[in-house]
């Protein structure tokens, strides 16, 4: 009967349901902590946890701790749906957080719409639903803003380019990236640029050179990529390998600070909404100290997004009178103003019909070979989020 022991252990473990403590604000998190996409989302969850730990150590919100219940969805939509169901119905969380790939959004939205619990996106791209006129239940803190990002990038390109822009575009073969790059392609035409080539690159590919070759053959002087960091950087490396000397502009993912220093590429620009650690603001020191204390497995420079997410959670919970209910949290979030302490160009403000932010700020960084350091190319410039 030795072999059936396994089964018994499994059954015993199934039977054990953790007792839910009801003296805390309950926040459910589902994120891509394992799986191929984990590199971009696990640090977010880690930072979120660190931040909330600090909040709790400092007395929590309204004298009550905030309890994070974290689930892993490996970026699988069905797992995310199941997680959401569990967090909503078994743990009775008052707020749900998504830190995963965009493919997990739809199933989670379906769940929260039924349960009437607010959903906060902290890891991936902000869905259109949080833009005005916002979906009642969805909120977003992440830097990414579909369409605004491309607008900011292309306007920067237009301002920076000294000659007519022949724009190359690179996307990853996932819908969200393709959609943004398609938008950028159309936008570039209206801005007087010439899109010369668009590469849509399947996610796992052993060699980016073939795509880079095709891109290079179209002879662009600027290449814009808005995709997961892997695709952005590998395409760049492929182009450089082929001796392409043009300018490359990409989205500033959480990895970008370390990557700029690694690549040391004079013509690589990154556009982003977060300030980098080289600014060395007090909040950056705070993050570094916390990460060091907790001995985290991810570089602290990748923790900005999660930290901002934590700030949003803290602010939301502090604005929610005890005892909390999803409705109260929701009401509190409708008019929340989150001070990002310099991590962003301005605060994140939510209104009844704008759950994104009223102003989206951007900055452009690049590597300066002379200084051997990352430098700010363009300081905060903002777009009003209206439509």
């Amino acid at each position, binding site marked *: 009967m030795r072999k059936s022991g396994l089964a018994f252990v499994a059954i015993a473990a199934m039977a054990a349901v953790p007792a839910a403590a009801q003296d805390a604000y309950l926040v459910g998190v589902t994120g891509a902590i394992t799986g191929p996409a984990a590199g971009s989302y696990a640090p977010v969850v880690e930072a979120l946890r660190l931040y909330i730990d600090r909040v709790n150590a400092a007395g929590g919100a309204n004298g009550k701790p905030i309890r994070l219940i974290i689930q892993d969805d490996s970026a699988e939509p069905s797992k995310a749906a199941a997680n959401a169901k569990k967090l909503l119905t078994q743990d009775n969380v008052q707020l749900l957080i998504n830190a995963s790939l965009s493919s997990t959004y739809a199933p989670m939205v379906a769940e929260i719409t039924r349960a009437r619990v607010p959903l906060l996106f902290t890891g991936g791209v902000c869905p259109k639903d949080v833009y005005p006129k916002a979906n009642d239940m969805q909120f977003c803190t992440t830097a990414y803003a579909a369409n605004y990002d491309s607008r900011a990038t292309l306007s920067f390109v237009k301002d920076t380019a000294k000659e007519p822009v022949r724009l190359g575009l690179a996307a990853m073969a996932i819908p969200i990236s393709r959609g943004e790059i398609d938008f950028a392609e159309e936008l570039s035409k209206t801005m007087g640029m010439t899109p010369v080539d668009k590469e849509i690159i399947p996610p796992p590919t052993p*060699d980016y050179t073939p795509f880079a070759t095709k891109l290079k053959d179209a002879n662009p002087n600027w290449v814009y990529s808005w995709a997961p960091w*892997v695709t952005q950087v590998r395409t760049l490396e492929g182009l450089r390998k082929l001796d392409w000397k043009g300018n490359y502009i990409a989205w500033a993912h959480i990895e970008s600070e370390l990557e700029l220093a690694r690549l040391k590429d004079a013509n690589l620009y990154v556009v982003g909404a977060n300030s980098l650690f080289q600014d060395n603001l007090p909040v950056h020191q705070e993050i570094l100290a916390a990460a060091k204390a907790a001995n985290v497995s991810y570089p602290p420079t990748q923790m900005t997004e999660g930290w901002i997410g934590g700030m949003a959670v803290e602010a939301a919970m502090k604005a929610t009178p005890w005892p909390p209910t999803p409705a109260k949290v929701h009401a509190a979030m409708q008019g929340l103003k989150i001070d990002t302490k310099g991590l962003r160009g301005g605060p994140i403000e939510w209104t009844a019909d704008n759950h994104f932010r009223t102003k989206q700020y951007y900055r452009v960084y690049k590597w300066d070979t002379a200084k051997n350091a990352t430098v700010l190319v363009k300081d905060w410039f903002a777009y009003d989020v209206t439509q």
Partner: protein
Amino acid sequence: MQLYVNIAVLASIYALIACGYVLIYRVSRVLNLAHGELMMLGSYLLLTTASLFTGHPYLAFAAAALLALVVGALVYLFLLRRMTGEMVLAAVLTTVALGILLRGVMVLIWSASQQYPREALGWANPAIALPGGARISTFALLLILSTAAVYLSLFVFLRFSRWGIRMRAAGQNPLLAAQRGISLHGVYALAWGLSTFTGGLAGMLLAMDSGLDGTMVVIGLKAFPAALVGGLDSLVGALLGSLIIAAAEIFLIHHVDPLLSDVVPFLVLIAMLVIRPWGLLGTKEELDRV
């Protein structure tokens, strides 16, 4: 010209990975679906040895390659050996399960972030200009050379060395081989070791060229159609298959739609399976039932 260089690079990547599938399938008729994970493990091992032997990059590289060999043999001795006599499908699923286990363990040890073993070893990767205006990165060139070296030594090893002949014998007729006093377990362990070694080598070189993250597993799987098109039990076939798949992929990327590159290897594969199920150079065989 660049196109042909690209084909050469991609084909060598596929070929170096595919020979791992072939080595194991040839001797034990097991399809190792954990090859991608073992490949990734090889590159992570390099990361670790790089930090252990700081300042001695060659030593670190050699140690990692040796470790990969040992890991492969251990995988056979502790796991797949127990699956002899079970359904082939069960053995294949065991390798899948091993892959899942390895993935979890690797995230646990090395986290899921991007890693750059080349920087850890302190090597640069300058591009080299080739005649005809084409360019190739140092490590891509190294990869082509390694693939050539690996295939050459495998041919020599299988044809002339004592253990190589044993391996071929065990692949052709295990029963007869065992009766002739060949230690089947030894041969299988060797095959697993060599397979992981070549896979690990591929992983390391790839990681050196472009970095290391969780997607490497999938790359391991992409080389699989190459092995199958060539014939799962033929090394020359694997080489040829890799070339065909790589060429098809690159021409499609360049002239049709880059998106197709994901599907095309499998379309080529289906076409192959319909025409010659046992592959271009594979042996026609009565395949095992489930």
